[in-house]
């Protein structure tokens, strides 16, 4: 079990020793001593090197002390000191090792949670030795993907895009749910692969993505347009000496993953979610968690000015029947953005977000978001229904069957959803704003959608209007990104803190809904930065700009808004932060 003796055989990424998988270094975490002992014995019988611990904290410190000392981690879901999923996330972010979850609980929701959190497998207790014999495949697969990503850093994005597009296509089909799940799984795997792209295994010098650097990145991405943002071009646009294409490529991947994670993960995060999401189905759950958390943070920071919420409400968010759920989506979106920003996971929508104040993002977008668009989103949301999770994950992916979503490519559907939902949610958001709505952001996309559906978003269901949708998408994605985006049309958002605010009021009749939601974004980001282990340090100091990353969203939002409104233009101005300018948010 000591890693010290772990034979080199296994260490090489692509060289598989003869006795492989013998010597595989496994870390087992379970608070049940009986199970732990049995597992250890079984793993030893499989000729693996086993280290066992009964507390998650212990496991984390073991892993941190010895980053390359383990090949795979097996963890129980229910543990007293830390939730297994939280541990899973930490490991994924910090060490990027394959993690297998296990539990006596075999409920679908729990297993799904494992999937969305990035677990590479889920074992039901009692675990049989046969199940453990093959765990080495996860290690090989991950390494293989990692190398592949590394080698094709340039083409990876394209690959991603293609995959996303295909996934989108899946979504648009009627069997959204099925597709969504598939794509989600693919995305998770892709995520893993992407994340590993610049793990230490690659042994490349790490670039620290500072806030400024990230802003430049987002600006470049926005400028190019999410579909066209290839590392090479981003690199050229950024014009940062010493930055390599691989750095940009991996950063882009992470950003995307981050966005995806935002939408999918956040379950444990949000308190807010509870308030909002509770009524909604579980799908929102994971997202909301994120949102909730963010909102709280944002709220805590005082970023969520009540007024934004109020504004949103006033804007006429109410248009949607605003079922209690609605607020969630809005929030989520914000969270998404905020969360994403730090992580630099730009969804497709990101591009749109100009680095101009993130807050402004919403600013531009919501107005243009006509009810129709919202409705569209709504539709998308609806189709998402259970897909909520997906929506977030895919951000703009429109997979959910909504053409809207597809459109969202640019902007991360997530953001959009928020936008849409913002309309109706706004009123709700306000109330929720106090709470960490962030979780919603993640779900935001999804929620937004759903919310829309529920609230009867006044939007028309014409989600056929692609153009509308795209606008929406942009808006939402932008919003999501920014978390603020919703904030601000009215410039109220000012601080990203607004992130919490329903950014996307965009869809709503209120046009200005946008910014308001942004409120909690700040918190969101903060939260994200922690979770995402991104090198990217969110600019917590930016009161207006929650995080520089967020700007991207703003820009996106503004771009979106512009497009929608045919000239939303001043969105940037309205934003307090210097978000990235929304340049060409392709509608």
């Amino acid at each position: 079990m000591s890693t010290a003796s772990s034979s080199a055989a296994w260490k090489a990424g692509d060289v598989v020793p003869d006795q492989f998988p013998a010597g595989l270094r496994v870390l087992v975490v379970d608070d049940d001593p009986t199970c732990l002992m049995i597992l250890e014995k079984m793993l030893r019988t499989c000729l693996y090197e086993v280290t066992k611990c009964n507390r998650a904290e212990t496991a984390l410190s073991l892993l941190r002390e010895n980053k390359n000392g383990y090949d795979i981690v097996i963890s129980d879901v229910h543990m007293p000191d830390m939730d297994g999923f939280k541990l899973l996330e930490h490991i994924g972010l910090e060490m990027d090792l394959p993690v297998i979850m296990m539990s006596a609980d075999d409920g679908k929701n729990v297993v799904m949670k494992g999937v969305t959190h990035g677990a590479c497998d889920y074992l039901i207790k009692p675990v049989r030795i046969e199940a453990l014999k093959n765990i080495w495949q996860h290690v090989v697969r991950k390494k293989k993907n990692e190398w592949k990503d590394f080698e094709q850093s340039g083409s990876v994005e394209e690959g991603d895009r293609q995959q996303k597009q295909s996934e989108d296509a899946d979504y648009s089909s009627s069997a959204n749910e099925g597709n969504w799940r598939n794509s989600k799984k693919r995305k998770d795997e892709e995520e893993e692969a992407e994340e590993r792209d610049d793990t230490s295994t690659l042994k490349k010098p790490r670039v620290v993505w500072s806030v400024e650097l990230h802003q430049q990145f987002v600006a470049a991405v926005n400028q190019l347009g999410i579909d066209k943002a290839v590392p090479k071009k981003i690199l050229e646009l950024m014009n940062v000496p010493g930055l390599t294409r691989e750095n940009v490529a991996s950063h882009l991947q992470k950003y995307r993953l981050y966005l995806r994670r935002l939408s999918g993960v956040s379950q444990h995060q949000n308190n807010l979610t509870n308030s909002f999401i509770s009524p909604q189905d579980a799908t929102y759950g994971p997202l909301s968690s994120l949102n909730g958390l963010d909102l709280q943070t944002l709220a805590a920071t005082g970023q969520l000015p009540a007024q934004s919420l109020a504004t949103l409400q006033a804007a006429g968010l109410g248009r949607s029947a605003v079922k209690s759920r609605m607020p969630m989506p809005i929030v989520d979106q914000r969270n998404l953005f905020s969360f994403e920003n730090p992580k630099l996971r730009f969804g497709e929508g990101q591009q749109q977000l100009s680095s101009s104040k993130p807050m402004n993002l919403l600013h531009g977008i919501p107005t243009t978001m006509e009810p129709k668009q919202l409705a569209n989103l709504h539709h998308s949301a609806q189709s998402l229904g259970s897909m909520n999770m997906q929506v977030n994950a895919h951000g703009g992916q429109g997979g959910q069957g909504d053409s809207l979503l597809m459109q969202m490519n640019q902007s991360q559907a997530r953001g959009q959803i928020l936008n849409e939902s913002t309309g109706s949610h706004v009123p709700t958001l306000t109330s929720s704003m106090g709470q960490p709505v962030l979780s919603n952001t993640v779900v935001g996309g999804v929620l937004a959608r759903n919310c829309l559906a529920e609230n009867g978003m006044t939007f028309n269901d014409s989600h056929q209007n692609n153009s509308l949708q795209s606008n929406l998408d942009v808006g939402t994605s932008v919003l999501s990104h920014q978390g603020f985006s919703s904030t601000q049309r009215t410039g109220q958002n000012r601080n990203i803190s607004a992130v919490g605010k329903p950014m996307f009021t965009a869809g709503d009749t209120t046009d200005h809904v946008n910014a308001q939601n942004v409120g909690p974004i700040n918190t969101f980001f903060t939260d994200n930065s922690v979770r995402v282990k991104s090198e990217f340090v969110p600019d917590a100091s930016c009161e207006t700009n929650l995080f520089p990353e967020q700007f991207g969203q703003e820009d996106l939002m503004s771009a979106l808004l512009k497009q929608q409104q045919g000239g939303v233009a001043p969105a940037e101005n309205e934003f307090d932060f210097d978000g990235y300018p929304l340049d060409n948010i392709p509608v």
Partner: protein
Amino acid sequence: MEVGQMQRTWVEYTKSLFMEGFLDGQFTQLQLLQDESNPDFVVEVVSLFFEDSERLLNDLTRALDQQSVDFKRVDAHVHQLKGSSSSIGAQRVKNACIAFRSFCEQQNSEACLKCLQQVKQEYYLVKNKLETLIRLEQQIVAAGGSVPMEELSF
């Protein structure tokens, strides 16, 4: 008793435990894991299970004894007991835990208390059986024989 006879008794007894549902296939897995490098594996695991379960049962008794019962906590304990009993193959204990959990969800104190009784009963039963089994094994080994695991053709 001579070794052969002890071994036969052991086989019959083990089979009956499986037939009556006290133990399931998972226990066989444990038995198969035992080898020369770890000749007391089953005994060790079983002892660990006893210790852990008794602790959990005490916690459960205390938790259900409260004025206002914290069902989440109770559920967490039951969940763990379910996990460990299933890992060791104590089937009836595991099943009693499953029933217990559903009442926890319903937040039904009375039913939970009944379930706790049931779980305790099953636990003491299987504890008794396993202790007998282990004693038999130790006698066989002490008499110079070996435990005929291969005879368990389930």
